[in-house]
């Protein structure tokens, strides 16, 4: 047992009928880290998270969370973690305060201590004014904040966050990001799932990319980008007739946009991008447009798997 690991998983598998949702995943998450699981819809992210949070039983494989074995001591795992699901797991009929008091009571606080803890959390999550409103009247961002607050009634060793910002507007998303960083700064290990490369890039110390239940890559954001190129050069030839020639000049990694005339090629840095542009200029291919962008999740997938994201 390595004590510096918050999560250690080996060969986790879980099928639902014919669908292999999680198909042999190993994971090592160091303590105190923000670790992101990146993948498209249906990649198995949620199932993996639910297995590690003791909510779904694996068909095979083993895992330890904060040193406790998932199979033999699920109750110890539960005592060491908190989970915030994809949909706010709150009682919509109750107010924000009542939800927090109820959950504090279920954690074992007395009535007075439970009320105190609820007030603290409401204040910290900027929800004091909405404390007396029923949760069904909350906005998406408020719900998400209350949901995360509900996971922090006691300090969890590991906090699982399933797509914490899906469906939030940019300012609410930034608020949740600040919150996650704040928690990590206090030493909470965070395992989050996301469909957004940018989110993983912004928050996570390490990223595991999963697809069809398998881990296809893992590393720091920098390491993954080295595989993908740090960015993508997009070019649109002025004359669509030059599209094929340009594609040839850009090399094997280049892709043609199936709908438009745009071509994309991953590049390591601006020098490489400039070299591509110079080659096109030498071949007298005029461009209507060119741009350098961060790789999208689709492009990361293409680079890692050689196929489009599902």
């Amino acid at each position, binding site marked *: 047992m390595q004590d510096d690991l918050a999560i250690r998983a080996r060969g986790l598998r879980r099928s639902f009928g014919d669908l292999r949702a999680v198909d042999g995943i190993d994971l090592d998450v160091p303590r105190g880290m923000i670790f992101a699981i990146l993948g498209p819809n249906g990649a198995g992210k949620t199932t993996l998270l639910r297995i590690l*949070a*003791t*909510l*779904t*039983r694996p068909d095979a494989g083993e895992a330890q969370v904060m040193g406790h074995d998932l199979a033999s001591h699920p*109750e110890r795992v*539960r*005592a060491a*973690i*908190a*989970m915030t*699901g*994809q*949909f*706010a*797991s*709150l*009682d*919509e*009929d*109750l*107010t924000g305060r*009542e939800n927090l008091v*109820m*959950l504090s*009571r*279920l*954690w*074992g*606080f*007395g009535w007075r*201590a439970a009320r105190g*803890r609820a007030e*603290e*959390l409401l204040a*910290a*999550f*900027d929800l004091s004014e909405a404390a007396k409103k*029923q949760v069904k009247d909350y906005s998406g961002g408020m719900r998400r904040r209350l949901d995360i607050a*509900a996971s*922090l009634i*006691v*300090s969890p060793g590991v906090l699982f966050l399933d797509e914490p910002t899906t469906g939030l507007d940019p300012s609410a998303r930034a*608020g949740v990001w*600040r*919150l996650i960083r*704040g*928690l990590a700064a*206090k030493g*909470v290990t965070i395992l989050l799932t996301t469909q957004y490369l940018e989110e993983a890039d912004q928050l996570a110390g390490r990223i595991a990319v999963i697809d069809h239940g398998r881990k296809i890559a893992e590393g720091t954001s920098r390491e993954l980008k080295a595989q993908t190129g740090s960015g993508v050069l997009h070019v649109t030839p002025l004359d669509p007739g030059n599209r094929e020639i340009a594609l040839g000049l850009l090399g094997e990694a280049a892709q043609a946009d199936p709908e438009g005339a745009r071509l994309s090629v991953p590049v390591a840095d601006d020098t490489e991008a400039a070299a591509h542009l110079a080659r096109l200029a030498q071949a007298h291919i005029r461009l209507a447009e060119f741009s350098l962008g961060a790789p999208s999740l689709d492009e990361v997938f293409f680079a890692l798997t050689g196929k489009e994201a599902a």
Partner: protein
Amino acid sequence: MSIPLPQGPRPAAPSPASTALTFAWRAVLKFRHVPEQLFDLVMTPIMFTLLFTFIFGGALAGSSTAYLQWFIPGILVQTTVFNTVYSGMGLSTDLSKGLFDRFRSLPIWSLAPFAGLMVGDMLRHTIAGAIILGIGLALGYSPEAGLSGILASFALLLAIGFGWGWIFIVLGLVVRTPMTVMTLGFAVLFPVTFASNIMVDPATMPGWLQAFVAVNPVSLMTTALRALMAGTATAREIGLALLGPALLTLLLAPLTLTLYRRR
């Protein structure tokens, strides 16, 4: 943003009694925030009571007052049995909202959330029963056994509600939406409550139906409740009334756990 994370030891896990109390509190809060649900619980039985007493009562029992003596214990059973559907709907809602996942990831006894639902149900059965009984008393119903009969009857009603509640907890775990639970529930409950001795004496029913009415658990429960209210209950009557709920609990409580763990 600074998040107050408590340092030091966590509180000890709550006792089952404290957990039950918290779930009961939740049920009370739901009554306070959604008072309409009280309507759902008692509107139908109130309508049934008024309709049957004043429209059919004279024809069925000679007078409305005489019919009340027959009907009130029966409608109490029907109310309790029907209200178990709402427990299943509540569970289905909690499951679809993911609230149950949160309960499950707490370090509490894995059956505690179900026990919690049951605590809320007992509260609902008591409130609904008290309202129906109150209306009956106001209309002229008089239980011969007085207060002790009423208390014994309510204890039986809670046992009935507890036993039948498992049916809808299982349904809540199996079907996908709260609406399906309700539709399925009423599809089962209408026939078993009408083909019983709740509304009328089965003496005039065809023989094959009488045979069903005689073994229908709803009839057995109603007979026992009438006897308790009248102060004439025998151990056999009460035993037969409790047989259904006991069997349901023995069969369905383990099934609930299995279904729940398999999710």
